[in-house]
């Protein structure tokens, strides 16, 4: 095995072009588990933690650009107001020690259907900045997940950053697990209201081969919510929203939960998170 340690981003891209078989490593919270448990040995490790500036974020217009090396701990401490849905999801990842090392880009690299950052990234319409020696392209988040633990990156590409629109309305994330810590989601759900555009975004986790949006449920909210009048949430609409979210999932039975339980839990989480978000939206109007 080789250990490659670029000191600049250009050097990192050059290494990846030369060695497309090298496994990038940041927090190592996925990569090192695999190596320690001997579930496969990478030909080389490409350590990105010595590249300066990769662990920072910047505000660029209406977006926050999260550097690939930004840890969950810093995202939680510094971006709770701008990106509330992603910050809530980040708070549920592993334990403090895991959040001190783990990154959103690592979550995207692993592309597990259960990764906690995916539902809020889908709900807020993030884009992934993929870079290689050939140049940089942006991949819309809902085109990024291509299969179980597979993503749209080419072999010579690295994630440089993730661009997430600053929240324009309330956002919520909800996750089912056996404890409040150290839990891989049985299933999870995120909702984001975009009142300026009279629409809502959704993201479903751990209930299909990839994280995914619930398109019909989003259409229901765009047309059905009382955006102007900010009246109370119609319980029938909330219930229908839950049904459409569950309908968009295609879960399996596995060690963490049964498919029918996941569908039930998704409908409940969808209804509840929508209720919280709508309360915030209408409450703000009253204030």
């Amino acid at each position, binding site marked *: *095995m*080789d*250990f490659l*340690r670029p000191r600049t981003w250009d050097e990192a891209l050059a290494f990846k072009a030369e060695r497309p078989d090298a496994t990038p*490593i940041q*927090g*190592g*919270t996925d*990569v*090192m*588990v695999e*190596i*320690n*448990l001997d579930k496969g*040995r*990478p030909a*080389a*490790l490409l*350590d990105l*933690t*010595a590249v300066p500036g990769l662990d920072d974020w910047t505000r660029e217009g209406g977006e926050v650009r999260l550097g690939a090396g930004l840890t969950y*701990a810093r995202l939680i401490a510094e971006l709770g107001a701008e990106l509330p849905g992603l910050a809530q999801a980040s708070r549920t990842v*592993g*334990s*403090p*020690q*895991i959040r*001190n*090392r783990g990154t959103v880009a690592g979550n995207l690299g692993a592309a597990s259907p259960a990764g906690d950052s995916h539902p809020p990234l889908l709900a807020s319409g993030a884009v992934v900045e993929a870079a290689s020696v050939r140049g940089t392209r942006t991949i819309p988040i809902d085109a990024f997940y291509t299969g179980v633990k597979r993503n749209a990156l080419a072999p010579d590409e690295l994630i440089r950053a993730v661009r997430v629109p600053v929240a324009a309305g309330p956002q919520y994330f909800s996750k089912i697990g056996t*404890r*409040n*810590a*150290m839990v891989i989601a049985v299933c999870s759900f995120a909702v984001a209201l975009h009142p300026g555009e009279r629409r809502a975004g959704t993201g479903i986790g751990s209930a299909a081969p990839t994280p995914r949006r619930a398109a019909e449920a989003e259409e229901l909210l765009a047309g059905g919510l009382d955006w102007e009048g900010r009246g109370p949430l119609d319980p029938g609409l909330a219930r229908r929203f839950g049904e459409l979210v569950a309908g968009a999932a295609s879960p399996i039975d596995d060690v963490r939960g049964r498919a029918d339980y996941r569908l039930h839990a998704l409908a409940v989480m969808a209804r509840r998170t929508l209720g919280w978000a709508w309360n915030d939206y209408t409450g703000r109007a009253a204030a």
Partner: protein
Amino acid sequence: MRVSLTVNGRPAAADDVWEGESLLYVLRERLGLPGAKNACEQGECGSCTVYLDGTPVCACLVAAGQAEGREVVTVEGLASGDDLDEVQRAFVEAGAVQCGFCTPGLVVQAHALIAAADGVPGDAEIREALAGNLCRCTGYEKILDAVRLAAARAVAPSPGSSA
């Protein structure tokens, strides 16, 4: 490969390190620091917790080469000679140690909590901070006692105080 780093304030180097090796292995097997424990090697138990550049992390999930040029503090680095650190002393006084396997990781994690806390942390804050450290013996109550004791002393250090 060779890995050079600072451990407990002193420069250290390990040779013939395998590229896929963890920082935990380097500390325990190459640098003779068996304080951080190896239990799960998958980030679940926290018994390998050390400071890396001032932040508590699971040493089992840090690739050795990632620690090149960095500063590591292990549980051995908290005491000064035979003088235990306040957190270690509180664990002894509160009876928070049984088999002791989880203790080094808990001490480092509690040390970080108390250093960062504004005043004495509440129970919810302590539980959340220690959520990644498993103990199979104590049932956690005495551990919580120890953290409260050390935190209270950190806020109002009074030399003659007893538990």
